[in-house]
């Protein structure tokens, strides 16, 4: 659950049902793995509508919710909270590589 960080901009996110992968709702009402393609609600009422739409499209995802984001120069969307940044960009360290160690 995202913390209550103030942010006027919001996107709708969820985890994909089939594999749990993080997804965002785009303008076409489809779930995408690309945050840069997410539909952005730019004021409170729009956020409510976006969430309603996300819930209406929730057949293939789990528990949609709104994520506070900021828009950086060039229109790049970035989540405000660390949790959502990690959800968006993955682990913050290098996971052990499956085949990195060769047993001789």
């Amino acid at each position, binding site marked *: 659950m995202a913390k209550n960080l103030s942010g006027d901009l919001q996107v709708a996110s969820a985890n994909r049902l089939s594999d*749990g992968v*993080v997804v965002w709702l785009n303008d076409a009402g489809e779930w995408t793995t690309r945050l840069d393609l997410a539909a952005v609600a730019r004021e409170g009422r729009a956020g409510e509508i976006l969430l309603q739409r996300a819930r209406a499209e929730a057949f293939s995802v789990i528990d949609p919710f709104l994520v506070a984001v900021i828009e950086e120069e060039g229109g790049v969307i970035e989540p405000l909270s660390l949790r959502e940044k990690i959800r968006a960009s993955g*682990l*913050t360290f290098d996971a052990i*590589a499956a085949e990195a*160690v*060769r*047993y001789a």
Partner: protein
Amino acid sequence: MPDTHFYRYDEYDRTLVAERVDQFRDQVRRRLAGELTEEQFKPLRLTNGLYLQLHAYMLRIAIPYGTLSSRQLRKLAEISRKYDRGYGHFTTRQNLQLNWIKLEDAPDALAALAEVDMHALQTSGNCIRNVTADHFAGAAADEIEDPRIWAEIVRQWSTLHPEFTFLPRKFKIAITGSPNDRAAVRVHDIGLRLWRNAAGEVGFEVIVGGGLGRTPMIGKTLRAFLPKNELLAYLEATLRVYNRYGRRDNLYKARIKILVHEVGVEKMRADVEAEYAEIRDGLLGLSDETVEAIARQFAPPHLPPRSSLVAAVEALRLEDRDFALWLKSNVAPHRVGGHAIVTASLKPAGAPPGDASAVQMEGMADIADAFSHGELRVSHEQNLIFPHVAIEDLPAVYAALGRLGFAEANVGKITDIIACPGLDYCALANARSIPVAQRISNHFADLARQHDIGDLKIKISGCINACGHHHVGHIGILGVDKNGVELYQLSLGGDVDFGKTALGTILGPAVTADKVVEAVDALVATYLDARIPGERFVDTHRRIGAQPFKERVYALV
């Protein structure tokens, strides 16, 4: 392939697990087809150990009492490669977590587990969880009896126990058979300690109401000496009292530790004994034949006594400093002369604590087959153990572990860090744990320095749920979120050694992530300046108190 020296499923177990796999396969099919809502499906997937984390589903696989055969470990490697990203995370509850499982693959992963007598049942939910035990069980020189025999009996009793499937909250049991507790029994809902009384009889001290989490408590003795064959009836009575009186109105007050704290251990004892009096002569009494039948399955491998002094080992000890350090920290006495218990450190410098790749798992299975009668153990400190190694084989085991990257001579040292998955994976976490552990590990990587510092246990949790056991770390580190910023609260003086079990006390204000290593360095420097010969970090802290540590840390950060 070597035969196993621990419990093997019988037809009943196999049928039960196979039926559950089939049920879950159908439940997953119905969920993917939209016939079940997430609200309906969530308890079903959790019952089968399937969580949803930040990035993906996570499958938590039970490793009963931390005991694994080489065949099982190879299967875990195969599953991690086929259905996950080729690695797994060994946890503080002797489980294995796979962090990238797809829902559609989960039934196949469970079916593969069932092929080697494994499952993920009761690794979630308000039930009796995987029973943990001393990771040196069946091998330790100081052991009175093998606790796994009793852990298996408890496993059979608690698996799908109809009365205890919906307890007020989850329930964790740990068992040790040694006077030197390696299973942290005083910080479990029920801890069981086998000991020998003045009459020479072996029985259990039953400890209740311990736990970590947001309200850490040290367990209290419910029964000082319980005859072994009465174990199940007494556990049943205790669970019944908890089930009846444990709070269901508040998630944070629902564990048995809160009940014991609120009513007092005397009242708890009176209620349990009253219930026990009702059922003690019932079906749960354990006959000697029943216990012996289980015990036979844990019959140790044949280990002919050998010489403990092996010329090749002594020669290598003199010429290879790191091997000499490894012998000191990673090799423990075995109950049979000429043998040893070897701990493979899953904490190489800078690596995520407790993680192993599929290749590494297969390599360790090979080592177990070649040198440890096909057996391994998972420790709650997130390492793997080879329980039965001939001393003459130690150089070969060391070399093989070195090729896997798991020969670090750091067991019990400052880089043998326990860390939960933290905010990188976990939906409950407030802060990251693994990157903090990695930075500390890299900073203190020098082995000679680690051995000079001596035994020092750092435990890191990414939230108050304390999966990283920070309350009982000599240095505990708790990640917190303050207005969107990760801060780390330091505590000192925690311990889980039996007789000395203690909860750490908070040192002072939390420090920022970039200051954690500096703060730990200051704590270590304070200890090194103040210690007297033979003192561990935690001993020095007990003697001089927190103030000198506090002054040094907060002068820096």
